[in-house]
C-alpha cells in the first residue's frame, strides 16, 4: 500500500566515475506489481537499494529525488521489505523462527505479538518445518522462502525482490515464486528484478525497462513493452519469452576416449558412477540437489581423491602420466590437460588484474612470454573482456566474472573442460556466448562436461546426458 515516486533520480557510488543509475522518472501506485528490467549494468540493483533506504548519504552522490509515500526512503524504512539474491548472507540467526523474529525485534514489536506474527509469516510462504529448524540445514530454496517470511513478517507496504531465484535450481526457484504469489497482500506494492521474464510474468502487471545510459526506455503492460522492445531486449541479454536460442548439437560422431570413471564415488556425498567422456562430445550431468553433481565434477577434474572406484585418463589425455590417476598429477600438468570451472567464479581468482588472471595458467605451464601475450589477447577478445584487462577480477559483474572464469580454464588449452553450473544466474547474452564457446570447443575436438540444472542449456548443447540419483 505504499507508492513510489522518482524524479530525475540518479546515484553515483563514491569513487566511481560513471553513474550507476541516472535520470529515472517513475511513479508506482500503491498495490502495483512491477517487473524492473534492463541489460546488465543498467542500475537495477542500485535503484532497489535506493528504494530500500540502503544507500547512506555519505556513500555516494545523489541527483533528483526518491520518495516512498512522500518520505525519503532512509526515513521510511519500516514501509519497505527487500529480499536479495544470495540466501547464505541474508539469514542472521541459527534457528528459522528466530530469524523471522529478528526483524520484528529490531522494529520494537511487542514481545507478545512476535511469535504469532512469525508463525503467520512462515505459514504464508509455505515453510515446511517448525520454528526450531536450523537455518544451516535448509536448501537454497527453503532459505529464500525463509528470507521472504522475514521480510513479510514486518508487513511492508512495498516489497522489493532483487533476483531472488537466480542462485536456485528450477524446482527451488518455482517454490519461491509460488510463495511470493501466495503470500502477498492484495494492496502490497511489488517491484521485482529478474532476468527470467517468462517465469516472472505471472507475478506482475507492469514492466519498466531501464536504459543503461540513463532514464527509462519503456514502461507499460508486458505485452505492449515486449511487442515494441522484445527483440532489442533479447539481444541485450534479457530473457524475453518467444525468442528461442538456436541449438548447437554435435555434427560429427565423438572421437577417442579421454576419461573413464569406474564405480567412482565419494561416500556419503556421491554413490558409484560409471561414465566415459570422449573428445568432440558435450556431456551433461544432471540430477536433484544433494545427488553429488559438484562432487563428481571435482573428482573428474582431478581435484578430489576418490573415496571409491577410480578415474583413469586415456593415453590421448594423460600423455606420460597414463598410469597415474588425475588427482595425483602435478597442478601444471593437470591444468594443461583438464580445465575446471567452479560454480562460484570468485573461488578461482588468484591475481589482481584480469590480464594476469588469464596469463597465470600459460605462465605456470611454461609458455614463453610472447605466446602468453597472444593467448591472453585472443581470450580477452573472444570473451568481450578486452576493456577490462586492467580491472580487478573481484570488481566484475556476475556475467563478466563467469566469462573470465571460463577463459582462465581455456588459457592452458586443456583437452577436457569440466564446468559446474556455468549458466547459473547468467543473462541471455552471456548464456548464448557460453553455448557457442562450448560448442566451438567440442567441434574442435575437445571434450566438454557440464554439471547443470539448466534444461535449456542441456537442450542447446548436450549430445548426451547422465542423470545422478540422490545417494
Amino acid at each position: 500500500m505504499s507508492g513510489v515516486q522518482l524524479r530525475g533520480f540518479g546515484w553515483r557510488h563514491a569513487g566511481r566515475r560513471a553513474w550507476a543509475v541516472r535520470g529515472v522518472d517513475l511513479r508506482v501506485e500503491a498495490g502495483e506489481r512491477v517487473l524492473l528490467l534492463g541489460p546488465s549494468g543498467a542500475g537495477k540493483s542500485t535503484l532497489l537499494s535506493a528504494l530500500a533506504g540502503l544507500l547512506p548519504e555519505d556513500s555516494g552522490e545523489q541527483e533528483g529525488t526518491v520518495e516512498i509515500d512522500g518520505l525519503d526512503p532512509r526515513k521510511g524504512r519500516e514501509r519497505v521489505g527487500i529480499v536479495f539474491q544470495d540466501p547464505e548472507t541474508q539469514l542472521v540467526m541459527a534457528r528459522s523462527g528466530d530469524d523471522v523474529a529478528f526483524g520484528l525485534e529490531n522494529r520494537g514489536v511487542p514481545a507478545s505479538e512476535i511469535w504469532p506474527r512469525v508463525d503467520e509469516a512462515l505459514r504464508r510462504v509455505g515453510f515446511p518445518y517448525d520454528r526450531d529448524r536450523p537455518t544451516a540445514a535448509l536448501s537454497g530454496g527453503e532459505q529464500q522462502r525463509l528470507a521472504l517470511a522475514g521480510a513479510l513478517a514486518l508487513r511492508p507496504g512495498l516489497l522489493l525482490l532483487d533476483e531472488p531465484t537466480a542462485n536456485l535450481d528450477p524446482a527451488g526457484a518455482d517454490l519461491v515464486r509460488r510463495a511470493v504469489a501466495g503470500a502477498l497482500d492484495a494492496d502490497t506494492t511489488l517491484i521485482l528484478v529478474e532476468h527470467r521474464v517468462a517465469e516472472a510474468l505471472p507475478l506482475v502487471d507492469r514492466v519498466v525497462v531501464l536504459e543503461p545510459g540513463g532514464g527509462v526506455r519503456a514502461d507499460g503492460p508486458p505485452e505492449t513493452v515486449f511487442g515494441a522492445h522484445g527483440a532489442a531486449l533479447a539481444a541485450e541479454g534479457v530473457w524475453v519469452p518467444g525468442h528461442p536460442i538456436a541449438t548447437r548439437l554435435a555434427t560429427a560422431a565423438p572421437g577417442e576416449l579421454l576419461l573413464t570413471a569406474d564405480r567412482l564415488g565419494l561416500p556419503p556425498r556421491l554413490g558409484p558412477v560409471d561414465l566415459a567422456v570422449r573428445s568432440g562430445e558435450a556431456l551433461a550431468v544432471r540430477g536433484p540437489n544433494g545427488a553429488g553433481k559438484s562432487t563428481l565434477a571435482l573428482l573428474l577434474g582431478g581435484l578430489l581423491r576418490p573415496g571409491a572406484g577410480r578415474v583413469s585418463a586415456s593415453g590421448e589425455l594423460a600423455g606420460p602420466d597414463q598410469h597415474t590417476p588425475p588427482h595425483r598429477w602435478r597442478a601444471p600438468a593437470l591444468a594443461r590437460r583438464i580445465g575446471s570451472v567452479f560454480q562460484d567464479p570468485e573461488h578461482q581468482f588468484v591475481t589482481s588484474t584480469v590480464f594476469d588472471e588469464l596469463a597465470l595458467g600459460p605462465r605456470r605451464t611454461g609458455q614463453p612470454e610472447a605466446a602468453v601475450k597472444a593467448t591472453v589477447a585472443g581470450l580477452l577478445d573472444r570473451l568481450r573482456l578486452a576493456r577490462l584487462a586492467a580491472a580487478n577480477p573481484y570488481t566484475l559483474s556476475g556475467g563478466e566474472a563467469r566469462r573470465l572464469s571460463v577463459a582462465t580454464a581455456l588459457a592452458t588449452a586443456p583437452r577436457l573442460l569440466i564446468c559446474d553450473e556455468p549458466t547459473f544466474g547468467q543473462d541471455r547474452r552471456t548464456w548464448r556466448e557460453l553455448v557457442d564457446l562450448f560448442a566451438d570447443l567440442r567441434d574442435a575436438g575437445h571434450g566438454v562436461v557440464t554439471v547443470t540444472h539448466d534444461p535449456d542449456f542441456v537442450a542447446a548443447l548436450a549430445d548426451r546426458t547422465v542423470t545422478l540419483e540422490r545417494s
Partner: protein
Amino acid sequence: MISIEPVAAPGAPLARRNPVAKVVAALVFSFTLLATLDPVAPAIAIAVELAVLPLFGIRYRVLARRAWPLLVSAVGILVTLVLFAADRSGRVLLDAGPVLVTSGVLLTALGLILRVLAVALPGVIVFATTDPTDLADALIQNAKAPARFAIGALAAFRLVPLLGQEWQMISMARRARGVDAGRDPAAKLRLFASTAFALLVGAIRRGTRLAVAMDARGFDAGTPRTVARRQPFTRADAVLIAVAAALAGSALTISILLGTFRPLLG
C-alpha cells in the same frame, strides 16, 4: 573441523542456568585460582569441576573430545619443561645426555599443567553447554551488552563453519589453475598466504552483504529493540555464582591450611 555447537543434554540442571550466570561463575572460579602457583588448589579445583560435570549434562568422553587442545597443551608444557627447565633440583629420574629429568622438574611441570586445566575447564564447560543464540540474548538482557555487538558477533559466528568449506574450495580451484607448491617449503608458505588472503577477501565480501541484509531488516536503526526470547535471571543463577566463588575460595583455603599456598603476587 572446529565444533561450536553445544554438546550437553539441554535439560541438565546446571546447563539450563542463565548463560550470563554461567559465564560469570566460570570467570569467578578461574580468576580465584589464578591467585596461587601451587599444585594443590588447582588439583582440588579440577576434582570439583569433574564432579559437577554430570550436573551440566556432559559426559566425560564428550568433554575429553571437546578439550583435546587443552590436553595437547598439557603435553607441550611437559615436554618444554623437561627440555628447558632452569631449575633441575631434586632427585635425578632420567639422565640421557642433554635431557636431565629430576623430581623438581616434574613437580613444576605438574603444577603448571594442573593450573592450565583448572583455569580453562570452566570455560570449556560453559561453552559446551550454552547455545550461542541464548548467550547473545542473555548478554543483551542481563548484562546490558549492546545488541549491535552481541547480535553482530552472533551473525558473524554463524558464518565460521563455512570458512572450512571455503578453504577447501579455494585450494582446489588453485590446483585447477595450475598452482601448487610441490615439495618447496617457501612455495608452500606463499600458497598458504595467498589462499588465506582469498579466504579473507571472500569473508569480508560476505560479511558486507550480511550487514546490508541486517540493515534492511531494521537492525541498529535507533528503534528500541524488543526481545522474542526471554532469558530470566533467577535466584538459582545468583546461587550458581555464589557457590562457584565459595568452592574456589575453599580450594585456596585448603591449600593455605596445608601450607602449600604460593601467592602469585608477593
